[in-house]
């Protein structure tokens, strides 16, 4: 059972919001005493996902939460946008696949950097990506 302890919602509409958001995630991670390497992994993964959100869906909303499961604490981030959605998630999760001009590392790379990764998308409605990084994960 995952319990949510504290929560914050950040709206992303422009590139500069990304820095604000990254700092917010860092504050949360420091509050639960996450180590520097895990913090960096979490924020890098978040940075990849928030870029996708800006590029393909013109922004969206991110929920930052401190969550707890048993004795373990962690950070859960939920990225929600109302963009065009992803028609083939399996393909989007493949290394090197991109419909933009990028390297295609964003989604698969972010998945490798966190402990829990889930993605749900409906064409024309939007995409929701949820990641969790545990303090000792």
């Amino acid at each position, binding site marked *: 059972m995952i319990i949510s302890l504290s929560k914050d919602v950040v709206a992303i509409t422009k*590139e500069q919001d990304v820095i604000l958001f990254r700092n917010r995630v860092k504050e949360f991670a420091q509050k639960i005493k996450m180590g*520097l390497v895990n913090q*960096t992994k979490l*924020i890098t993964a978040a940075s*990849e996902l928030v870029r996708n959100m800006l590029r393909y869906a013109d922004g969206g909303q991110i929920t930052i939460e401190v969550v707890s499961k048993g004795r373990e604490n962690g950070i859960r981030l939920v990225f929600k946008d109302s963009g065009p959605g992803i028609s083939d998630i399996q393909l989007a999760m493949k290394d090197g696949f991109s419909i933009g001009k990028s390297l295609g*590392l*964003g989604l698969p*790379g972010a998945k490798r950097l966190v402990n829990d990764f889930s993605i749900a998308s409906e064409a024309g409605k939007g995409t929701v990506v949820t990641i969790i990084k545990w303090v000792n994960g």
Partner: protein
Amino acid sequence: MDKIPILRMGAFLLVTIQVDLYDRLALNLESDLVQMVSKTDAKGVLIDISAVSIVDSFMGRIIGNIANMSRILDAETVVVGMQPAVAITLVELGLPLKGVHTALDVEKGMNLLRSKMQVLEEEEEDLNDEDDNIPV
């Protein structure tokens, strides 16, 4: 508009990134730097990222681009001061920064650039020597 300063030190260009980069800022740095290389005929570019806490795939791509573009313009690029956590994250992300020279700190990076210049000069001398030896 924020701007990252590019300092000239002899034949080298020195860039110290002290702020968190957002995409536009990184793209501007890329074009400014490549233009500076061409304008000042620089032989080396040193990028200090010791104050950068996050390098994601976009930022990594920009660093790779700068190195490739500079190489075409006859300048070597060295990235120095990467934080250990950033290195760990980059490799796990799947972006090992191929083709980019790295050094632990600015001093070592400068030495690396200088040694690369020396090698180039020696090669040129060798070529000139060979030209002299061609029998008429």
